[in-house]
């Protein structure tokens, strides 16, 4: 049982390190521990995070704080309508001295890419992010460049009703592991924030608590977290339910299942647990699934958001129990 012991050791490590990161980030973003935790979960799940909310609630602050807490390369891209794809990926420029084309890497070549107001860019530019996010490679002029690990895109966007925004295409939304809303801070938290941010610059004072290499190690540990068959099936059941419910026009993709299970692994490791429980899946279902779903016309009219639909599905899909584990369920022909 050496393997189990290692994994156990690993998850302890993950929990401890993640705790430190969370503490560091929370010194900047006050009163939002669950958002911070989700951000770290996505980081450990090798995913990308979409932060959506109205301006001024600390979206960019969160992204920056997370990046700062980890000692690694951070690039920030401010998306504007005139941003070009090459502004993200980089360009091949002709070097007069060497008489050859030379690749100038864009801001995407970093461990952390903070894409600010991503939905203000044109769809063309947005889609330039697609390949990078999914495949962790950049192809420019026929050459494919590997991105560094860890690699995480933290994008912020304003709600699509705001002026000057292009909605993110479904394909791109699907590439974000989770979407999180910051929400307004509570009155107390806001008061604290006024105090701290008024007198000094917490973000500037934030010291890194770990580095890219350590995070890569943590990610390796997360990959070893055990997912029992019933839990996998639960995830699949849940995703299948989003495809079958009449409230949704578009259900979640198989990629969503993968993301869900991966994020659940990370969440389990954050809890110092070397196996995933359905609770992890349940806790992550709304942030991981909701942004990929399109409500049906009826649900839209009834003002039922995809979040509400997913929450309702959580109440409907049975959790696999001991009796149903390892045995195929009775299905109708």
């Amino acid at each position: 049982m050496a393997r189990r012991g290692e994994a156990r050791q690993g998850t302890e490590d993950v929990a401890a390190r993640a705790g430190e990161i969370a503490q560091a980030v929370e010194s900047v973003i006050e009163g939002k521990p669950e958002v911070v935790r989700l951000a770290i979960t996505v980081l450990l799940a090798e995913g990308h995070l979409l932060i959506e909310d109205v301006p001024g609630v600390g979206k960019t602050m969160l992204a920056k704080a997370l990046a700062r807490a980890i000692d690694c390369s951070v690039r920030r891209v401010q998306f504007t309508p005139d941003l070009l794809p090459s502004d993200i990926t980089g360009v091949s420029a002709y070097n007069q001295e060497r008489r050859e084309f030379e690749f100038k890497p864009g801001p995407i070549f970093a461990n952390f890419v903070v894409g600010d107001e991503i939905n203000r860019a044109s769809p063309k530019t947005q889609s330039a992010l697609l390949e990078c996010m999914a495949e962790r490679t950049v192809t420019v002029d026929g050459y494919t460049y590997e991105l560094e690990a860890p690699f995480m895109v933290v994008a912020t966007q304003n709600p699509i009703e705001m002026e000057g925004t292009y909605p993110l295409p479904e394909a791109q939304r699907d590439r974000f592991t989770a979407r999180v809303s910051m929400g307004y801070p509570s009155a107390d938290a806001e008061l604290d924030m006024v105090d701290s941010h008024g007198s000094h610059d917490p973000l500037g004072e934030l010291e890194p608590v770990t580095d890219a290499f350590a995070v890569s190690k943590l990610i390796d540990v997360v990959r070893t977290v055990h997912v029992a068959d019933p839990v996998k099936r639960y995830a699949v059941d849940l995703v299948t339910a989003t495809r079958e419910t009449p409230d949704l026009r578009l259900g979640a993709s198989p990629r969503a299942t993968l993301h869900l299970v991966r994020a659940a692994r990370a969440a389990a490791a954050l809890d110092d647990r070397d196996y995933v429980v359905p609770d992890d899946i349940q806790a992550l279902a709304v942030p991981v699934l909701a942004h990929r779903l399109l409500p049906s016309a009826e649900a839209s009219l009834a003002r039922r958001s995809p979040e509400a639909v997913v929450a309702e599905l959580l109440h409907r899909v049975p959790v696999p129990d001991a009796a149903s584990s390892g045995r195929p369920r009775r299905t109708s022909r």
Partner: protein
Amino acid sequence: MSGRTRLTVMAAVATVLGAVVLRPLFSTLDYLLPAFGAVAVVALVSEGCRRLALPAIAAPAASLVALGGYLVAAYAHTHALFWVIPGPAAQADLHKLVAKGFDDIAKLSPPVVAHPGLLLLTTAGIGLVAILVDFIAVGLRKAAVAGLPLFGLFVVPAAIAPHGIGAMPFLIAASGYLALLVADGRERLGRWGRPLGAGRRGDEGPALRAEVAETSPLARVGRRIAAASLGLAVVVPGVLPGVDDRPFGGNGNAAGKGSGSSSVVAINPITQLRRQLTARDNTRLLRYTSDSKANGYLRMTTLDNFDGLQWSQRELKASSDNRVSHGLPAPLGLEPTVLAGVVNVNVKVTDNFKVPWLPLPYPATQVEVKGDWRYEETTRTVFSSRTSTRGLSYHAAGLVPLVSADQLRAATNHDAEPLYTALPGGDQAIPQTILDLTEDITKSGRTAYDKAVLLQEFFQTQFKYTTDIQDGNGNDALERFLLEDRRGYCEQFASAMAAMARVLQIPARVDIGFTPGTKDGDGQVVTVHDAHAWPELWFDGIGWLAFEPTPRPDGQAKPPPYTLKAVTTPGGPRPTDQPSTAPTPGASSTPKSRIDDLAPEKLGSTKTSSSGPSGLLIAGLVGLVLLFLLALPGLARVVMRRRRWAAAETPASAAHAAWSELHATVRDLGAEWNRSETPRAIVRRLIGGLGQDTDAAGAARRIGAAEERARYARWTDETSGTGAEQLKADTSAVSAALRTAASRRTRWRALVLPRSVLAAAFHGLTGAVADVLDGVDAILAAAGRLVRRAVSPLARGESA
């Protein structure tokens, strides 16, 4: 195959399957083949008419003609032109057959042997139903309504067959109707178009696959709904008392002899007797007062012809001289020297009872009644061809021969009509087995009387009384009754004993009438349940004497005193003063005390002595059984708990055991247990309900954590984790805490009626039902495939 052709086929199939319900009426399945032919002819002709695009009404008309031709070909082709066109001779043949068929219907009680006459009628009936079903389902496109003519098929056996239709024929017939509905549904669906989401599956040809994919989910739902409702239809009447007996409202007993009005009960001698005994409603037939405590039977008529098939009454004939108002002759065979008591009865018949025979004590010596009532000379049956017993009031006096066993032992049995010892020969001869049995039973008896008593004893001791048996006629039924079943009701006992007496050369006949009924104030009330049959045996010098072979448990049928051992001791009961030795009409002045002396005290006392303690015993037993039944769910709960823990060998199984035990406890207490909740969430909720009980909360958390680990953690064989003992203690602690938190009522309910057990039982039941339904689905689907495969060339031909 096109939808319409499928409908036609299904309509025919439904009719053929519907014909299966007639099975209880026949002793063999022979009737099905001609019926099948008739249905096939109808289906072919109707389909042909529709293919020729004739008007809708042409199909049934042509089918009717074709059915006629088919019947002629099947039953009267010897004199028919080209086999099917009936000439006068063939018509005469048919007419004879039909008459014979109706005669059989009137005479025989089901199950009957399928004689040609009956077959002709049955085939014609089924053919007509086929025409109607085809016309309604295919011509008018109202498959559901086609159930009505099919239902007509149900009515016949339901009304006539003593045991109703039976579950199996009913299910078969119903499945036919179901198939028709499914075919209709598919046809409609086919016209609407293919529903979305129809998967592409199956490996048959593309056309077939499309058909399968098109409808099978819907059809399956339909089949399931229908199967479930059929199941209910079969089960519910069985559970509810009094539903199946009266299927069509009114008085279910109204039958035979065209006694149209629904409030009238017509009692035909023997075929109706059983219906009376098994009838659920206990209609009052008559009330009478008697001046004797020892109430005897009231006889209506006598069956004295035995043809091996059944007992029947002779033709009742009487001239106007035989009006009862002119007085009755001296009873046949009763010597004036034989002592006899007199019993006077005043009878008031209700409006519910309408028969042409007057229920009287036998032998009646005087009858005072309004109307033209006459007696038949040999049998003394008092009857009327003009009026009936309905609402009648009359007075009658009858004799009760006071005979001793010695007298009877001394009596010979030669003076009766030869008819009364006649036994059928040829095919209907009594089988050797019965002759041997009779010989065997009576070999220790020296005289005819002793043999008769031995016979009676044989029946009284070796047989069980039940009205719930297969009905039938003839020697098969007799043999079955005597040698195999040894259970039956009065008609069978009476017929069997009478037949065996005739084997012993003792003149015998079967009487039909009533037992004394139940006491009601100063009189007796006779209901349909008191209908009875008993044998009478002839003794020279005494005449006809009743015997009682029927061991009726309700005490309504008691062996007469002169047949009982206690009374047959020499001397016997002897009247002391002024016996009426000369039974004459109007002998009502004879003292009645004799008869009262004869009241069988012995019987009376045994009856009370046996009913007392055994009644208590039965009550006690019933109580115990009830207690056991009440305790059953609770006991099952305990057993389940034990079994759970017994299976807890590894930490994982111990965790599962603790968890399912916790689940069961929560269910028992009526708390929520949502299947979409994780163990963690459930424990959280439970702890919320436990309040301040931190020990229990900790225990619950341990159980939840153990279960979570057992379910979802990486599998290991290490024995870490919470031990079984700890979990057991935790479970007890949590259960106790949950119970304390619950109300007293909930606690009791959990103890007596644990929901977990009930749910498990229900789950098992529904699982079994689902399995059965799945089986039915598979069979129906396979049958559907077979049919499609068989008829697909036809369909291709049509579409081409």
